[in-house]
């Protein structure tokens, strides 16, 4: 039974990993806590649902959702990050929260505030290993999310563009001086970030077969917690944090009941922030921006 719960927790954690990695990229490279990420997560799930409902093939529906999320990511760059470069540190955070509020309410207006059941895209199949049942859709989404994150990690380490991104993370001005086209790379990063989280939203919808306009708020904030717990700016930290949050959530439902999830998850975050603010794998905060 415990083994089953651990598996379930890791599956759920896979979704959190994607969100946490997106947050960690934004904070590590741009030093910007991008609170619109839960919004793009919700777009990924909700818009695919809406498009599937009007009869689109799933490839088109998912592409539309990804495209829309990418557009929102670009908007966030234009309206939040660019104007706020030299202002008070809380301004970009607040403005990106504004984006979250905006996309959430637009989704409610056009798609309703109810929880919707997501049609089954993948054939329903389960794997059994002894007493443990592994849902096929969940397994695929865990594999996809971890695969994407590993791919990203290698991309950042090995590729030329990855090296440029890390240069910006190290020092923006020096990177610009050394010929990195910061003005082009940063919007690309925003789009990439939005695609990443929207993919998370789609994977969540596929594996748990439910979407709602509030899914970003519910899961996205846990993704932030995962990022903080793992350590800001660290991809491996985000992976560990995401899986840990998933485990804590599932195990607390199992042993205490679903009303205690928030106490356990956010209690863990609170304790960790007080005891070890830099997170499990993070370096002690050298640069600090809100």
């Amino acid at each position, binding site marked *: 039974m415990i083994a089953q719960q651990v598996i379930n927790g890791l599956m759920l954690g896979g979704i959190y990993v994607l969100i946490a990695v997106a947050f960690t990229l934004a904070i590590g490279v741009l030093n910007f806590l991008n609170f619109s990420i839960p919004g793009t997560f919700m777009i990924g799930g909700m818009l695919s649902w809406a498009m599937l409902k009007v009869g689109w093939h799933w490839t088109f529906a998912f592409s539309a959702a990804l495209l829309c999320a990418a557009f929102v990511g670009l908007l966030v760059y234009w309206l939040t990050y660019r104007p706020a470069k030299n202002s008070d540190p809380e301004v970009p955070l607040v*403005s990106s929260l504004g984006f979250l509020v*905006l996309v959430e309410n637009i989704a409610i207006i056009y798609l309703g505030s109810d929880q919707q059941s997501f049609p089954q895209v993948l054939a329903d199949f389960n794997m059994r290993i002894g007493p443990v049942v592994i849902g096929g859709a969940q397994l695929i989404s865990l594999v996809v999310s971890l695969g994407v994150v590993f791919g990203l990690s290698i991309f950042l380490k090995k590729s030329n563009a990855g090296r440029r991104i890390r240069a910006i993370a190290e020092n923006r001005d020096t990177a610009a001086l050394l010929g990195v086209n910061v003005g082009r790379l940063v919007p690309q990063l925003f789009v990439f970030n939005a695609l990443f989280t929207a993919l998370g939203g789609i994977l969540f919808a596929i594996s748990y077969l439910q979407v709602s306009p509030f899914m970003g708020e519910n899961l996205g904030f846990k993704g932030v917690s995962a990022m903080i717990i793992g350590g800001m700016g660290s991809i491996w930290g985000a992976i560990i944090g995401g899986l840990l949050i998933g485990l804590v959530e599932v195990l607390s439902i199992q042993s205490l009941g679903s009303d205690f999830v928030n106490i356990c998850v956010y209690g863990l975050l609170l304790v960790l922030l007080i005891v070890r603010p830099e997170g499990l794998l993070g370096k002690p905060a050298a640069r600090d921006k809100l």
Partner: protein
Amino acid sequence: MSGYHLGLLVLLSFNVIAAYAVYLPLAAGQLNLGIAGFMVVGAYAASYLNNEMGWPVAGAIACGGALAAAVALLVAIPILRTHGIYLALATFALGQVIAAIFLNLEVVGGASGYPVTAHIGAVAVVGTAVGVIAFMALLSTTRFALYLTAVKSDPLVSDLMGINIRFIKVAAFTLGAAVAGVGGGLYAHYFNYIEAQYFSVMLSVYTVLYVLLGGTQTVWGPLVGAVIFTLMPELLRASAQWRYALFAIFIILFMAARPQGLITAGVGGYLRKRFSREAV
């Protein structure tokens, strides 16, 4: 005054109280994303004292505020070790944890909510809001307000100048929580029913958003922000969801164009100049 206008005024009063609860720590550079958590403490404590212990309403609400302040004081010491994003997220987590605890507290009804028997009229709510505004205006003329600005602008230099930064930070955080607690207590006794779900993250987020819209440089910014947040959707006659969507668009554009908020120290000076010229 019609019932509609009275209702609007009461709503405005609640928003104003919440706004100042956010403003105080923000003036010292702390972004408190867990203000709803302190409201929930005030609301439940006041209702419980009034319902079960038979305390008078005013005493119960005051005690609710004091309890919220006590919780804030208790957590301020570990929490204010963190700063910047870490502090914002710690307060966010704190708000979530507090609300979730009350959601599971069977003695105050758990998830089904908690009915409150004693009722207070609109006058008490509006009066308290005016009192809070007066208190903040008074506070802004003291050295304490200067200390807050100093700590926000440059903690290191203000420390060198002999300001007890830790004390100022804890005081701002605690005082803000007390105001939030009183607001929660008033809310409980005005609507005679509370549920922990109402005091969600989004409530904290909206409050922070309209305070920053008004601007945190002067004491009048939060008031203006609360007025805009309350009245703009009424004037637009929009539905509940459109009001938030429009507000969000407004916030995004505003932060891009005028990130320091609507009311800045400069605006006050400009008005004063105009005013004195007309007086002459």
